[in-house]
C-alpha cells in the first residue's frame, strides 16, 4: 500500500547526474517519456514530452523552473521534499537542464516558506562545492546553476503562466495559452516548469530504470492531514482502499475524506471500502480527513472564501462566479432557504466556470460548491 520511491530510498547524491551526463540528451528525454512520468500538479501532462518540446528549440537560452509555490490548503508535500530531499530535487533539475540544453534553473518558492530559504541555499552551496552545480559539472562540458526566487503571496502564482509573470516582476495573472511556456516562457525563452515531486522522481528513473519505475507507477504522493494521528506525506498506491488508508494514518471516528484538495471530492463513510481513485483521481494531491465533530458546511464555506479571495480577478467567470457561489453557501449556512431554481442556476454557473475560466483555478474552484451541494441536497446529509 505504501511505497518509498522518493521518501526514504537508499540514495546517493550524484549517481543519477553522473549517469545522465554520460548519456546523450535525446536518450534522457526518451527515458523520461518511456517512464510515463506525468506532471504531479493539476495537469497530468507527460513530463518527457514537455521536456522534448523545449529541447527541440534551438539555443541554450532556456529555463528549468521548479514550481515550489505550494499554496493549496492541506498540501505540504513540497515542503517536506524541500526540507529533506532538496538534493534529489536539484539532481532532477540538473538532469532536466542537461536534457533540454539549459543552464539556468530557478526554484520559485512559496512566500510562506521563506523561513527555510537560508537552509536551502546552504544545501545548494554544498552541491556547488561538490561540483554538481556551476561550470563544467563533473568535468563535463555542461554548466547549470540554480537560484531561488520568492513568491509574493498569491495562490494564483502556482499556475505556471502566472508564475512566469510573477518571475518577470509583473502582476500574477495567467497568460493566454498557446504559446505554451515550453515555447515562450520566462523572458519569452523556452521554459519547462515542473513541480517539486516531479523533479524528485527523475533521479529514481535514471538510477533504477524505466521498468522498475513503471512497476510502481500507480503510486502518488499525498499530503495527508486532518483528524488523524499521523499526518504526514505518504506515497500511496492508488488502489489502496480508503479504509486501509485511514488505518495507516490512525484516523478514528471519520465522517468524511476530502481527496484531491479543496477542489477535490468529498467521500463519505459508505464509500470508504472503495479505492482512493475510484472516482478518477482529482487534480490536487492532498487528503484531508474529517471526524464526526466537524461541520462540513463550514469547511466548504471556508474553501469557497479562499477561492473568492485568491481569484486573480482576471477573467469574468472566476472573479464573479466564485462570489455568487460563496454568497449562496453563506445564505444556506445561515438557515435561509434558497429557491430550487436559484440552486439550478448556481449549478449551471459552476459547470460554466469549469468550462470557460481562463486557468485551472477558475476551472476547479466551483468543485467546492458542488461538494457543498451534494452534502446539502443529496445523499450526504450530515447536519451539524
Amino acid at each position, binding site marked *: 500500500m505504501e511505497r518509498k520511491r522518493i521518501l526514504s530510498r537508499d540514495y546517493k547524491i550524484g549517481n543519477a547526474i553522473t549517469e545522465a551526463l554520460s548519456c546523450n540528451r535525446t536518450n534522457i528525454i526518451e527515458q523520461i517519456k518511456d517512464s510515463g512520468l506525468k506532471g504531479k500538479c493539476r495537469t497530468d501532462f507527460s513530463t518527457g514530452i514537455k521536456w522534448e518540446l523545449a529541447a527541440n528549440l534551438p539555443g541554450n537560452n532556456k529555463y528549468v523552473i521548479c514550481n515550489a509555490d505550494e499554496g493549496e490548503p492541506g498540501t505540504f508535500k513540497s515542503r517536506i521534499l524541500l526540507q529533506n530531499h532538496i538534493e534529489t530535487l536539484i539532481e532532477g533539475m540538473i538532469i532536466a537542464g542537461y536534457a533540454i540544453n539549459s543552464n539556468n534553473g530557478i526554484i520559485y518558492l512559496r512566500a510562506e516558506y521563506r523561513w527555510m530559504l537560508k537552509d536551502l541555499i546552504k544545501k545548494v552551496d554544498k552541491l556547488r562545492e561538490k561540483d554538481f552545480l556551476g561550470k563544467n559539472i563533473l568535468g563535463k562540458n555542461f554548466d547549470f546553476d540554480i537560484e531561488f526566487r520568492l513568491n509574493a503571496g498569491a495562490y494564483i502564482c502556482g499556475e505556471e503562466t502566472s508564475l512566469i509573470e510573477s518571475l518577470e516582476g509583473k502582476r500574477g495573472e495567467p497568460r493566454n495559452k498557446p504559446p505554451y511556456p515550453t515555447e515562450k516562457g520566462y523572458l519569452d525563452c523556452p521554459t519547462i516548469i515542473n513541480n517539486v515531486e516531479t523533479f524528485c522522481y527523475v533521479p529514481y528513473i535514471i538510477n533504477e530504470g524505466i521498468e522498475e519505475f513503471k512497476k510502481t507507477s500507480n503510486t502518488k504522493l499525498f499530503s495527508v492531514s486532518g483528524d488523524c494521528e499521523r499526518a504526514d506525506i505518504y506515497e500511496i498506491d492508488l488502489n489502496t482502499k480508503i479504509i486501509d488508508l485511514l488505518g495507516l494514518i490512525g484516523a478514528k471516528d471519520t465522517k468524511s475524506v476530502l481527496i484531491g484538495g479543496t477542489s477535490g471530492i468529498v467521500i463519505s463513510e459508505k464509500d470508504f471500502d472503495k479505492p482512493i481513485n475510484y472516482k478518477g483521481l482529482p487534480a490536487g494531491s492532498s487528503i484531508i480527513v474529517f471526524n464526526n465533530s466537524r461541520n462540513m458546511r463550514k469547511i466548504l464555506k471556508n474553501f469557497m472564501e479562499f477561492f473568492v479571495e485568491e481569484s486573480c480577478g482576471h477573467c469574468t467567470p472566476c472573479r464573479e462566479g466564485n462570489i455568487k457561489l460563496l454568497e449562496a453557501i453563506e445564505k444556506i449556512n445561515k438557515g435561509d432557504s434558497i429557491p430550487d431554481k436559484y440552486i439550478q442556476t448556481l449549478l449551471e454557473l459552476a459547470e460554466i466556470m469549469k468550462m*470557460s475560466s481562463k486557468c485551472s483555478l477558475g476551472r476547479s474552484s466551483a468543485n467546492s460548491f458542488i461538494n457543498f451541494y451534494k452534502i446539502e441536497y443529496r445523499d450526504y446529509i450530515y447536519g451539524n
Partner: protein
Amino acid sequence: METEAKTGLKIIINDRELKANGDETILELAKNNNIYIPTLCHHSDLCLKGVCRICLVEIEGQNILHAACSTPVAENMIICTNTEKVRKARKMVIELLLANHYGDCLTCKRNLNCELQKLAAEYNIEEIRFKKPKEKRYKIETVTPIVRDNDKCILCRRCIRVCEKIQGVEAIKPLYRGKESSIGCLYNLDLGEITCVMCGQCINHCPTGALTEKDATKDAWKALDNPAKHVIVQTAPSIRVALAEEFNIPPGIAVTGKMIAALREIGFNAIFDTDFTADLLIVEESFEFLTKLKKSYYDNENISLPMFTSCCPSWINFIEHYYPDLLSHLSTCKSPQQMFGALAKTYYANKAGISPEDMVSISIMPCTAKKFEANRAEMSHNGYKNVDYVLTTREFARMIKQSGLNLMELQDSEYDQSMGISTGAGLIFGATGGVTEGILRTVYELVTGNDVPFNELDITPARGMEGIREISIKINNPLENWKFLDDFEIKIAVAHGLANARNLMDKIRDGTANYHFIEIMACPGGCIGGGGQPIPTNESIRKSRANTIYSEEKIVQIRKSHENPALKRLYEEFLENPLGETSKKLLHTFYT
C-alpha cells in the same frame, strides 16, 4: 519547419471549411469569413487579453470552451461558434457582468452606444439571475477631464492596455484581486494626482460608460442661452471628418458645411475655424524653427535641437511628466486652440467692438486634454481665459441632437470671415504628420523661394499610420539670407501614440537620434484618432478619417499657410511680424 507546415491550414467553423494561414486567431479567421463572434475585452487596436470570456467557442475534442480572441487556429481544428453550450456560457458571462454593473442605462452617456448593452440585447437577457448591488460602491472621479465611474466598469482592461501599450503611460492599472478587483491608479490616487496625460484614449476604448469626458455642454448651453453674451466657437480640423459618425454615417464623410450650419442653428454668434490659427501656428513655428537653425548653424550658438512641436496638450503633459529635461526643445508656440482663444478676445473683440468680458470662447476639439489645456494658468491674457469651454466631438454631437437638428439634412454653411479663412496646410493638422507637412511647405519656401520638392505639395513620407516616420529634405539654392543652409538636409521625425514618442525621446536623451524637428501627436493617427472623437475609433476608422482630410485638402485653393490672406491681414492689422512683440505676448508660452 513549423511555420512551413502552418501555411494553408484547413479549419472548419460551423461546418464551413476555411483556409487559414496559421498566424490568425479563431476570432480573426471567423471575422475574415463573416462569422460573427461577440467580444468585449477585444479591441483591434490592442493586444489580446482573453479576460471577459464572451467570445467562447467550442473546439471539437475538448471539454473546455476556448476564448476565440486569444486562441490561435491549428490544423484540422473543428470549431463551433453557435452551440447550446456556447450560448449558455456566453449568456452566463453577460449576466455575471451585468450583476456587477451598477448604473442606469437611461442616464448613461453611453446609452445606445454601449457594448455591454448591445450584448445584453443580443443575448436576450430578460432577467439577471444574480443579485445586483443595491447602491453605488465607488465614488465618481471628476478631478480631471476624464471621469471614471468604477461602478460601470466591467474590468475588460481595454483602458489599461491602451494606456500601457499605445500611450506608454500606465496611469491606470488593475488593482487588488478577487472580490476587490478594480481598475485604478497607483495607491488608489485620483487621475489628477498621477502622471495621466489626459489623452482620453481610455474613454475611446472603453466598451461601457465607466470612462467618459467631463461634460461641458451645460456650460455651453448656459452661455448660449444668455443674450448678453457673445458666444464664439472654433472647430478643430479633425471634427469635420468624424462628426457624421455620431449620426450613424459610415466613417470617412466630411461634413464641414453641415457642421457650420448646425453651429448657426444652435445659436453661436460667430463661427470660426481652428484651421486659421493652425495656419498661424505654422507661420510662427516656421520662423521659430528657422531662427533656431540660424542660431545653431550660422551663429554657432548652443541651441536645443531638435525642436519639438507643442500643439498637442497630451504630449505637453507627457513631456512635463516624463522628460522635463527636454522641455527646452519644445516650440514656444501655444496650440492653435489657445492661439485662437487669445486672438478672439483681443484682435476679434476689437474688430467686432465687443468687450472680452461679454465674450464666451468655446472650442470643439477631438480631445479631452484640450479641456485641461484651456484651464492652464498660462493660457489667459489680461485675466481672461483664452478659451472658456472645450467640447469634444461627442459632446458637440449631443448638442446637435438636443437641438433637434438632423445634421445630414442641413444646408451647407460657411465660416465667418475674419478668422474663418484657412489653407489646406491648416486642415491637415488633424492627421499625424500634418504639422510637419505644413511647416515644411512654409519653411522650404521661406528659405529657397520655391515650392517643396514634392509632387503637388504632397509630402507623402509625412503621411500614413507608421508609428514613427522619418522625412529628410535637402535645401537647394537657398535665397541670399539662407546661404548657410545650401545643401543642408533637414531631418524630421514624426511620431504618434506616446509609446512611440517615448521611443524617440529616449533616443534624444541618450544622443543617438539626429533630427532637427520632431512632431509628436499623443493619439494614434493624430487628432483624427483623438480621445474626444466618436466611439468606436480603430485603425480602419482612423485611416478613413485621415484619407478624407487629405482628399478635402486637395480641393482647397490655398495650400500653404503663409499664403492665407486672412493671416496676412492679421499680421498687417495686429501682430506685425511673426515672433513679433504682440505674437510673443499672445501666442507663445512656456512649459514646466
